[in-house]
C-alpha cells in the first residue's frame, strides 16, 4: 500500500510546499516553521543548518510528522513520493515510520531504551514491521551491527545501552534506524553528544550507508563544518524560514546571505592563529511569537537597511542550484560599501588603541 511500490529510484523523493508549523502556547502562537519549501532527490543528502531555535529540528519532525498533536498547527504540503504526509493521521504516519523513513536522534544515551538489550531494540522494528521471527531478527540485527562497524557486534546484541560507549551507542541507534531499509533518513544533530574524535566516523558512516542503500538523508545540525563534507545540498534556516539554499559546493564558494556568512565566521579555522577571537553573531534569535516585520535577520544584520526592516525578502533563485532571501546579499554594492566602512572603523579603532 505505501509507496514501497512507487517510490522513485531517482528523481524527486520529497517536496515541501510552504510548510508551516506553529505551536499555540500560553504566550501566543509560536511560528517555529513559517513557510518552508524545497525538494530533495532520491539518494541525496540535504543539510539543514541553523542555530538553536531556528526551527531546524521542528522542520525535520514536521516532515516526519513526529510532533505532539496537542497545540501543534500544521499547514502546507509534505509530498513524499506523491503522498501528502501532512494529510495523514497518526495511524497513517505510522506505516511510514521505521520503514519508509526513520530518524537518528541527538543523544543516544537518552534515546535508546535503557532497559532493553541492544539486540532487541534493533530486532523490534524487524519483528513488528517485517514479521521476522526471533532468530531471524537476531541474525539481521547482528548483520546491521556489522554494517555500522561496531566492535564485537555479537557481544553487543545482549548488552544494554549503558554498557556501550557513546560512539557505539550512536552506531547502535543508526543500526535501529537502518533496520527496515528506509528510503529517507533523518539525522538530528547526530554527533553533537559525541566526542570530537568519533564525530567524523559517525558522519562518514551515515554517508556510506546512504550510498550503499540509495537513501536520501536530511542532516540537521548547527555546525556548517559538519555538513560541508557530508551533504549534496545545504539549506540555511533562520527563525523558521529558509535564508539560503544551494548545493554544498556552490554555497561555500558563493554564499549570499549575511546569516550564512556569519555562521561560517563563527567556526574556528585551522589556518587561523590559535586564540583568534571567533566572530559571534550579535544579538539573539528573534521571538517567534512576534517575528520582525521585514527580514527576520535584519535586527542582527550588519548590512540591514530600512527596506530590510520593512519588506520581507522572498527566496529567489540566482541559478538552478542556488537561491537566497536577502535584499543586500554578500557581494552587492551596499554590502561592499558597508564592508569598507566596517573595515575602516576597525582600522581606526586599532589605530586609536595604539596611540
Amino acid at each position, binding site marked *: 500500500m505505501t509507496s514501497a511500490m512507487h517510490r522513485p529510484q531517482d528523481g524527486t523523493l520529497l517536496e515541501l510546499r510552504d510548510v508551516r508549523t506553529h505551536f499555540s502556547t500560553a504566550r501566543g502562537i509560536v511560528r517555529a516553521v513559517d513557510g518552508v519549501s524545497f525538494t530533495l532527490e532520491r539518494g541525496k543528502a540535504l543539510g539543514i543548518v541553523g542555530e538553536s531555535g531556528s526551527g531546524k529540528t521542528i522542520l525535520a519532525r514536521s516532515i516526519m510528522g513526529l510532533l505532539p498533536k496537542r497545540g501543534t498547527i500544521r499547514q502546507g504540503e509534505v509530498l513524499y513520493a506523491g503522498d501528502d504526509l501532512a494529510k495523514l493521521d497518526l495511524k497513517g504516519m505510522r506505516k511510514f515510520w521505521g520503514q519508509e523513513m526513520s530518524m537518528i*536522534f541527538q543523544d543516544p544515551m*537518552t534515546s535508546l531504551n535503557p532497559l532493553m538489550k541492544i539486540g532487541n531494540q534493533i530486532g523490534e522494528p524487524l519483528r*513488528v514491521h517485517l514479521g521476522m521471527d526471533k532468530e531471524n531478527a537476531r541474525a539481521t540485527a547482528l548483520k546491521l551491527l556489522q554494517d555500522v562497524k561496531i566492535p564485537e557486534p555479537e557481544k553487543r546484541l545482549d548488552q544494554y545501552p549503558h554498557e556501550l560507549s557513546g560512539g557505539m551507542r550512536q552506531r547502535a541507534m543508526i543500526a535501529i534506524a537502518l533496520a527496515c531499509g528506509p528510503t529517507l533518513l533523518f539525522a538530528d544533530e547526530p554527533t553533537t553528544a559525541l566526542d570530537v574524535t568519533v564525530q567524523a566516523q559517525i558522519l562518514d558512516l551515515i554517508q556510506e550507508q546512504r550510498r550503499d542503500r540509495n537513501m536520501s538523508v536530511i542532516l540537521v545540525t548547527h555546525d556548517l563544518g559538519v555538513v560541508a563534507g557530508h551533504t549534496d545540498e545545504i539549506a540555511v534556516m533562520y527563525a523558521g524560514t529558509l535564508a539560503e539554499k544551494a548545493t554544498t559546493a556552490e554555497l561555500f564558494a558563493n554564499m549570499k546571505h549575511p546569516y550564512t556568512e556569519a555562521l561560517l565566521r563563527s567556526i574556528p579555522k585551522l589556518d587561523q592563529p590559535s586564540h583568534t577571537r571567533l566572530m559571534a553573531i550579535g544579538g539573539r534569535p528573534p521571538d517567534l511569537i512576534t517575528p520582525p516585520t521585514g527580514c527576520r535577520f535584519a535586527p542582527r544584520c550588519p548590512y540591514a537597511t530600512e527596506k530590510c526592516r520593512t519588506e520581507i525578502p522572498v527566496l529567489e533563485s540566482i541559478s538552478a542550484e542556488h537561491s537566497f532571501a536577502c535584499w543586500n546579499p554578500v557581494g552587492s554594492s551596499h554590502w561592499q560599501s558597508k564592508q569598507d566602512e566596517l573595515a575602516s572603523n576597525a582600522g581606526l579603532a586599532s589605530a586609536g588603541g595604539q596611540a
Partner: protein
Amino acid sequence: MRYFAQRFLQLIVVFLIVTFVTMVAIQAASKDPARDLAGPLNSTEARVEEIRKHYHLDRAYPIRYAYWLKNLVTLDLGNSPTLGASVRTLVGQRAPITLLLGLYSIGLALILSLPIAVYAAYRRDGPFDRFVSGATFAAVSLPNIILAVLLGYFFATKWRIFPYAASKIWPWDDFGEHVRNVALPTITLAVGLIAIFVRLLRADLVNTLQSDFIVMARAKGLSPARILWRHALRSSLFSLMTSVALQFGGILGGAVVAEQIFALPGMGLLLFQAVQQKDLLVVQACAALFALAVVIINFIVDMLYAVVDPRIRHARALG
C-alpha cells in the same frame, strides 16, 4: 550476590530490632506481665510466680528476648491463657487467611491499577484521566473503616451478594465460597491501594512518556500499545514497587479493621482480641509475624529493582 547477602543481613537485623522493641513495648505497658499471662481469672500467687519463672519475666529485657527468640526458633511460643490454646496453633490457624487477604488486595489493586494508570497517562488530561484523578483522590480520603461499613451494608445486608459474617474457608476446600467470603475484606483493603498505585504509576508514566526514547520508539513506527506496555511501563515501575513494599505493613494494619467488620477469623481479629485481653504472647507472636512479612516483601521488592533495571544489577555487581 554480594548485594543479595547484604540485603538479607539487613532483613534479619530489622526483624530483630522490630521484635525486640515490640516485646519491650508490650511488656512495659503491662502492670505485671506474669499476672496477665497467668490468665484473667483469679490465679494464685504461686501460679503467677511459676509463670514468671517459666517465661523468665524476672530477668532483664535482653535476656527475656533471647529466651523468646529461642522459643521462636523452636516454634514453642507458649500458651494463651484466654484462648486456651498454644500460641503456635492460634497463629498457625489465623495467619494464612490474613496473609492471603494481604496478597489478594495487592494483587487486585495491581491488576486494576496498571491498565487504569496506563490509559490515564496515555490520554493525559482527557476525560478519563480527569475522572480517575478525582476518583482516586476521593478513594484515598475515604477511611477504610467507613468503606467497609458501606460495602457491608450494600453488598451483604441489602443485596446479599456476599455473606456479612465471613467464615474461614480455604481456597483448596471450596474456591467459590472462599472468594465469596474474602471478597468484601479484600475490596475494603484494595480500594485505597488502587488509588495510591494509580496516582503514583500515572505520574511516573507521564514523565516517562516525555523521554527521548519514547520519541525514538514512535519514530520506529511502534503501536501505541507496544510503546506503552513494553517501553514506557517498565521504566515507570519504581515508585509503584516501592509503594507496594511500604504499603504492605499498612495492609496488615487494615486487615485488623476489615476482619473486625466482616468477622473474618484471621490474624487481625486474633490480634485485636489478644490486645484487649492482655494476651501478651499472642500479641508478640502476631507482631513478629507481621514484621517478618513486611521485611520479606521489602526484600523481594529490593531484588525486583535489579530484575527490572539492568543498570542497578550491574552497578551492584561492581560494588
